């Protein structure tokens, strides 16, 4: 009678995994986790840091000064950047982004402003290596 004893947990695991994937996929629409590469946000963020990001805030309002955001690199949209909002021109619908490590950052000083509409994700917190809240 060994086959059922193997099969039942297997089915339970598959169902559980499917449920997890579905919940994860739904959640990632408004809450997601990303990993930082590069050092232009040092010392706030370092390469390898993991961040919780959320997209519900900018569905309601535009970004605010000082917030950490994800934005496509205007020169290479497939590359998603993490930078700080340094200036906002609400009338023009654009943001200026800056890296915290100003001398080691490629940001709006190089690629110009970024459309507010292109900025969907706000950095909520760094959960790895140490939990620390950002505003």
């Amino acid at each position: 009678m060994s086959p059922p004893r193997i099969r039942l947990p297997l089915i339970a695991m598959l169902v559980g995994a499917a449920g997890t994937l579905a919940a994860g996929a739904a959640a990632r629409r408004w809450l997601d986790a990303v990993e930082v590469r590069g050092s232009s946000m040092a010392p706030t963020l370092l390469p390898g840091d993991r961040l919780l990001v959320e997209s519900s805030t900018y569905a309601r309002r535009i970004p605010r000064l000082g917030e950490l955001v994800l934005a496509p690199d205007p020169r290479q949209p497939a590359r998603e950047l993490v930078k700080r909002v340094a200036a906002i021109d609400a009338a023009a619908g654009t943001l200026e982004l800056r890296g915290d490590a100003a001398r080691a950052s490629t940001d709006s000083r190089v690629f110009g402003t970024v459309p507010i509409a292109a900025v969907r994700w706000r950095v909520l917190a760094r959960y790895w290596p140490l939990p620390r809240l950002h505003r």
Partner: protein
Amino acid sequence: MLTLRSLLRPSRRVHAHCDIPCGIYDPEQARIEAESCLRIIEKHDASDDTLFRNRCIHVKEERAELVKHHLDVLWHDYFKPEHLQKYPDLHDTFWKATKQASKVKQSLDTAAATELLSMIDTIDDMWKATGGLEKTRVNGRPS
């Protein structure tokens, strides 16, 4: 809990990006010193003044040392691993160019100095192909 765990797995990488160490390195620095080496050797050869010739040797050795310094900095601070993928002979090119700079330091050979210039130009091509020019030189600089 499973959901939380899966949520905390990063879905993608985001870039705290900096183009090449920040547009502050330029092969022109090495080239200027290498040009100086060549001209000093020419002045040395054209002079009969022992003191002047000795000074030429002294200054030329200083300049050749500066070539090595500028090339070294460019090598380890400007070029990144992704550039090595694009130019697999990057390390070899720098090794040979810095060796050539040593040769110029040790000798009074104009051919060696000319060869050094052409090696620096090869490095300059790689620098330009990786966007160094746009990121480094400030608008309005005389060409």
